[in-house]
C-alpha cells in the first residue's frame, strides 16, 4: 500500500501532467488560430488572451482565481490579456450542501440550523473559491457600524469551498517548480516568474481568509456612512471566521440585469455619475479602492442605492500619490497631456528624458482621439492604446499605476451599465476642478509658494 506522501506526490504529478497537457493543447490551438504567426500583432495577442481565459476556466478554481488576479495587473500582462481575463466566468458547479453544512459546523462548532433561523440549502451563488447560501439571523446582532440587525434579518453565508485551500496550495507548489524552471530562460526571466507567483500566492492567501474582506467592508461602510446612495452589507462577526463570512443580504439587481424597466424606477444618470464620484473619493480622499468591481460585485437596490460586495482585491494610495493622481486625472479630463505625463512620472512611470517629448505627443493624440470626443469618451479604448504605447516604448508600469488604470476602465464599465449614455470625462470634470482648487488652496502649498510669488510681484512692479 502506498504511503500518504507517495500518494500525494503521485496526485500532484497527475495534476501537473493534466495542466501541462491542457496548456500544450491551448498553445497549439492558439498557434493554429494565429495561422502560425501570419495574423497581425494585436489580433495574435487577442487570440492568445482568449486561449488563456478558456484554459483558466477549464483548469478549475485556482486557475480562475489566478486569472482574476492577473486581470488586475496591466503592469505585467498585455492589455488584451487583462481585458480578456476580466471576462473569466467565475461560476463553477456548486458543492453539495451537506459538505457546506459540515464546513459550517466545523468552523462554528454548531450546525447551520442551530446557528441560523432558516438556512437555505439551495445556493445563492457558487464561485471558484466560495459558495453563498441565504439564511436568517436567529438573534439580533449589533454590527460594527449602523443600526442593530434584528432577529430574522436575511443574511448571506459565504463559505470557502471545502478543500480549496489544499487545492490552491498544491497548484502553487507545482507553479513554483515551473516558475523556477522558467527563471532559467533569459527571455522569460524578465517576467520575474518566481516573484510574480509569490505575489499571487500572497494575494490568494489574503483572499482565502474571509475576515480580511469583512474588515474592509466594515471600513468602507463607515467611510461612506454619510452617503445615502452607497450601501455596504454589514458583517455579522459573531458567526464569521476565516472560512465563513456572514453578512447582511441586500436585495437588488446586478448590473447586467439592469434593464429599461429597472432604470425607470431610479435616477440612473445621477447614480452613474455618483458611482464615478464614489470611486474618485476612494482613490483620492480615502486612500483605498475596490479594485475588483464587476457586475457580480456591484448592484443597484430598488431604493436607487449602489451596493458594493466582495472586497477581495483592494488597491491603496498614499497621500503623495493621491495628489499626483488628481493631477493626472485633471490632465486627462482637460486634455493637458504635459500635466498628465509630469505627474505620471511622479507616480513612478519611468520614462527616460529622451522619450518624454515623443511620449507626450503620443498621449496628446490618444487623449484627443479617445477622451475628448464629445459625448463618446472611451476610457477603455484610451487605456488599451495607452498601455500598448508604454509597452512599445518598453516603459515599465508600476503595479499601483497599472491597477489604477484598470480600475478607471472598470468604473467606466460600471457607469455605462447603469446609464449607457454617460460621458465619464464630462462627468469627472467638476470633481477634478474641485480637487485641483482644494490642492491649490492648501495652506502649506500657499506658504511654500508665497515667497516666490512675492518676489515675482515685486519684480513686475519695479520693472
Amino acid at each position: 500500500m502506498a504511503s500518504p506522501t507517495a500518494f500525494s506526490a503521485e496526485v500532484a504529478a497527475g495534476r501537473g501532467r493534466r495542466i501541462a497537457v491542457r496548456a500544450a493543447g491551448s498553445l497549439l490551438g492558439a498557434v493554429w488560430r494565429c495561422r502560425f504567426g501570419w495574423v497581425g500583432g494585436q489580433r495574435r495577442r487577442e487570440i492568445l488572451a482568449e486561449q488563456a481565459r478558456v484554459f483558466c476556466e477549464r483548469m478549475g478554481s485556482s486557475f480562475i482565481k489566478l486569472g482574476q488576479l492577473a486581470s488586475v495587473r496591466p503592469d505585467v500582462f498585455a492589455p488584451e490579456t487583462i481585458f480578456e481575463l476580466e471576462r473569466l466566468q467565475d461560476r463553477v458547479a456548486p458543492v453539495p450542501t451537506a459538505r457546506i453544512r459540515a464546513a459550517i459546523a466545523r468552523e462554528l462548532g454548531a450546525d447551520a440550523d442551530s446557528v441560523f433561523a432558516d438556512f437555505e440549502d439551495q445556493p445563492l451563488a457558487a464561485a471558484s473559491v466560495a459558495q453563498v447560501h441565504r439564511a436568517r439571523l436567529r438573534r439580533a446582532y449589533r454590527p460594527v457600524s449602523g443600526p442593530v440587525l434584528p432577529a430574522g434579518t436575511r443574511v448571506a453565508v459565504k463559505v470557502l469551498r471545502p478543500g480549496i485551500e489544499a487545492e490552491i496550495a498544491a497548484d502553487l507548489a507545482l507553479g513554483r517548480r515551473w516558475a523556477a524552471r522558467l527563471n532559467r530562460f533569459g527571455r522569460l526571466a524578465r517576467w520575474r516568474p518566481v516573484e510574480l507567483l509569490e505575489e499571487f500566492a500572497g494575494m490568494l492567501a489574503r483572499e482565502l481568509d474571509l475576515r480580511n474582506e469583512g474588515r474592509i467592508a466594515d471600513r468602507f461602510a463607515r467611510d461612506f456612512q454619510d452617503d445615502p446612495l452607497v450601501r455596504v452589507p454589514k458583517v455579522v462577526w459573531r458567526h464569521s471566521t476565516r472560512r465563513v463570512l456572514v453578512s447582511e443580504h441586500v436585495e437588488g439587481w446586478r448590473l447586467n440585469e439592469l434593464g429599461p424597466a429597472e432604470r425607470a424606477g431610479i435616477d440612473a444618470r445621477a447614480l452613474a455619475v455618483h458611482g464615478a464620484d464614489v470611486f474618485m473619493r476612494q482613490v483620492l480622499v480615502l486612500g483605498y479602492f475596490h479594485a475588483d468591481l464587476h457586475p457580480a460585485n456591484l448592484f443597484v437596490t430598488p431604493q436607487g442605492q449602489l451596493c458594493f460586495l466582495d472586497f477581495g482585491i483592494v488597491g491603496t494610495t498614499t497621500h503623495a500619490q493621491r495628489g499626483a493622481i488628481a493631477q493626472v486625472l485633471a490632465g486627462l479630463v482637460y486634455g493637458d497631456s504635459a500635466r498628465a505625463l509630469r505627474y505620471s512620472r511622479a507616480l513612478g512611470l519611468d520614462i527616460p528624458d529622451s522619450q518624454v517629448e515623443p511620449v507626450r505627443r503620443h498621449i496628446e493624440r490618444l487623449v484627443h482621439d479617445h477622451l475628448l470626443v464629445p459625448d463618446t469618451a472611451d476610457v477603455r479604448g484610451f487605456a488599451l492604446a495607452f498601455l500598448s504605447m508604454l509597452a512599445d516604448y518598453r516603459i515599465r508600469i508600476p503595479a499601483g499605476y497599472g491597477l489604477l488604470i484598470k480600475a478607471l476602465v472598470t468604473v467606466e464599465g460600471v457607469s455605462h451599465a447603469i446609464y449607457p449614455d454617460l460621458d465619464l470625462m464630462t462627468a469627472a470634470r467638476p470633481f477634478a476642478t474641485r480637487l485641483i482648487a482644494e490642492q491649490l488652496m492648501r495652506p502649506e502649498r500657499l506658504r511654500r509658494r508665497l515667497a516666490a510669488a512675492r518676489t515675482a510681484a515685486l519684480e513686475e512692479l519695479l520693472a
Partner: protein
Amino acid sequence: MKNFVELLAAWALFHESADEGWKAAVARGREQTPGAMNEGPEAFVEGLAALVDEEKERLKQRLADGSTTPDGDSPIDLAEQVERLGFEIAELRGRMESLQASIDGIADRLQR
C-alpha cells in the same frame, strides 16, 4: 472727488458691485454644469468661488455653534475623535467575536 458724501457713495457702490459680482459668481459656480471648464478660466474662478462660499458657510456654522474650546479642539473635532474611537472599539469587538466563533469551532472538534 469734491464731495465727501459722493466719495462714500462711490465706495459703497464699488462694494455693492463687487458683492453682487461675487454672489453671481458663486451662483454660477454652484450651477456649473459638467464640462463648463471648457469655457475658460472664468468657469474655474466661479467654481472656486462656490468652493470658498461653502467653506464660508461652514465657518459661519462653526462660529454660530459657539464652538472653539480654549485648547483649540472644537466640539466638531472632538465628536469626530469620539466617532473614530468608537469605530475602532467596534472593530475590536468584531474581531473578538470572530475569534470566539473560531474557538467555539475548535472546542467542539476537540470534544468530539
